[in-house]
């Protein structure tokens, strides 16, 4: 096994696991790294996935990111926005999105920071978060794991429904909500703690539970023994190089850190 991979590549591989076992669903990765993660899954762990060209067509193979040169997307089905909603409401989709805030319930926010009536910072708006979160599986991608993202209390504007008993609509149960993974620059989280509590699933090489907890605004569930997030395989790295021929992934995380922290790499890898 090699230590010669970037944190971005580690996160792509960890995030691609979100779609394993999903079968024939539409995979949507919002942002470059989640899109590469979905693309990688379609080319490895789940070839039955469907993806779009991020414009208006389902393609038979993931479209490499960035300038296309002579590459023509292999379009197989028209998939304009109106049909995307038909798909969303039918439930055969798993999206990986990047909320600006996430709380202990898995509620996400991309709408605004501060009071909704007069926000401190107006962001995108709720977009499709409310409908996605009540209709199909969702995972989150958080490139900078800190307490501004993983907030104490609730997110400022609950754009996506989470496992919050106080907000559960009448007649609904947690079984109607399906949040799978949260992939961050420090770790992978899931919702398999007690009563859907957020649980540490694996730590990236060299990251401690203490560091993750110190950067999270609420208490995380964690087993005594925590696995290390698996390193990318040579096969995965080769696929990523094809899916991202211009190495745009190197520009997504500040300073493009290595997958194995430098201090560890010198001493021969993670303990």
């Amino acid at each position: 096994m090699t230590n010669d991979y970037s944190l971005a590549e580690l996160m792509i591989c960890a995030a691609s696991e979100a779609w394993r076992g999903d079968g024939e669903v539409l995979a949507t990765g919002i942002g470059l790294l989640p899109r590469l993660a979905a693309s990688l899954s379609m080319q490895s762990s789940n070839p039955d996935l469907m993806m779009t060209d991020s414009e208006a067509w389902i393609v038979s193979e993931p479209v490499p990111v960035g300038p296309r040169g002579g590459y023509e997307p292999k379009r197989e089905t028209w998939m304009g926005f109106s049909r995307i909603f038909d798909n969303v409401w039918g439930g055969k989709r798993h999206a990986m999105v990047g909320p600006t805030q996430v709380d202990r319930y898995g509620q996400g926010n991309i709408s605004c920071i501060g009071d909704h009536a007069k926000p401190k910072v107006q962001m995108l708006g709720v977009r499709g978060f409310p409908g996605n979160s009540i209709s199909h599986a969702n995972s989150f991608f958080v490139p900078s794991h800190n307490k501004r993202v993983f907030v104490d209390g609730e997110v400022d504007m609950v754009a996506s429904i989470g496992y919050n008993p106080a907000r559960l609509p009448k007649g609904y149960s947690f079984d109607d909500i399906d949040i799978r993974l949260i992939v961050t620059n420090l770790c992978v989280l899931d919702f398999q703690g007690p009563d859907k509590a957020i649980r540490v699933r694996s730590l990236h090489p060299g990251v401690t539970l203490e560091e993750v907890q110190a950067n999270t605004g609420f208490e995380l569930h964690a087993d005594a023994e925590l696995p290390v997030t698996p390193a990318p395989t040579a096969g995965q790295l080769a696929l990523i190089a094809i899916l991202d021929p211009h190495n745009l992934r190197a520009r997504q995380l500040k300073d493009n850190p290595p997958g194995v922290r430098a201090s560890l790499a010198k001493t021969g890898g993670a303990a």
Partner: protein
Amino acid sequence: MDKRMSPAEIVGQLEDGMTIGIGGWGPRRKPMALIREILRSDLKDLTVVAYGGADVGMLCAAGKVRKVVFAFVSLDFIPLEPYFRQARETGVIEVMEIDEGLMVLGLKAAAMRVPYIPTAIGLGTDVLRCNPELKTVEADGREWLAMPALKLDAALLHVDRADRRGVCQIKGPDHYMDDLFARAAARTFVSCDELVDTDFFHRHPEEARYVFWERSETSGVAEIAGGAHPSACAPLYGFDVAHFKEYAASVKEEGGWQAYFDKYVAIGEQEYLARAGGFDAIRQLPLPVF
């Protein structure tokens, strides 16, 4: 029947306080020439319903807007629309912030002439808290959000081509929700890059496949070459990245909007085209790669 109108005649049909739907999506296929015509007019107190881009931002900047019904307002490569953001953060506009799909259902309800469409979308979120007018109903032992009809007094759309009777063709990869906007509106006004004779649609049977609503939904047609600029009208032209950057940068300058308005809006559409580099240059704008 001849539905041709000038942009000024179209805007002359609009009144203060109206609810106006605007087609397109973010920086794509927005009826920007008609928006500029509104910016030059005395219209005010509009409620705007849109998958918003610079259309919403400019109307906010010019003080034309009382309320925005939106799920997002974005220029894509500039994620946060500068003047919409400014309007929100200074609290000068009312909003109804809803999910993208709720907007589909609201337009569909208006088009179907039903009061609401039940859905799970929005349940458990602050969309309900921030919009007290949204009610829930019960069926099958469950709560559902009753998305009310978003009835529009008028819709403004931009299409690739149309004939004088209001047969509209969108040749780009996506017609977005333009058909729903047309059906949800009491009257729909369309700008087109090219006005064609009806026999254009007869020459190749597939041309009619790119017509997404019947002409009875179209009230008026204005031929405005480059009328979507600076937004895209694929496959004719992409969006104007340099222009959007200049527009977005203006928000940071004292009197920035007024300077943009003086340079690009006040001067009228013919001079606008010239200052935007000319129609030939617009037609050369590369299509976006997503």
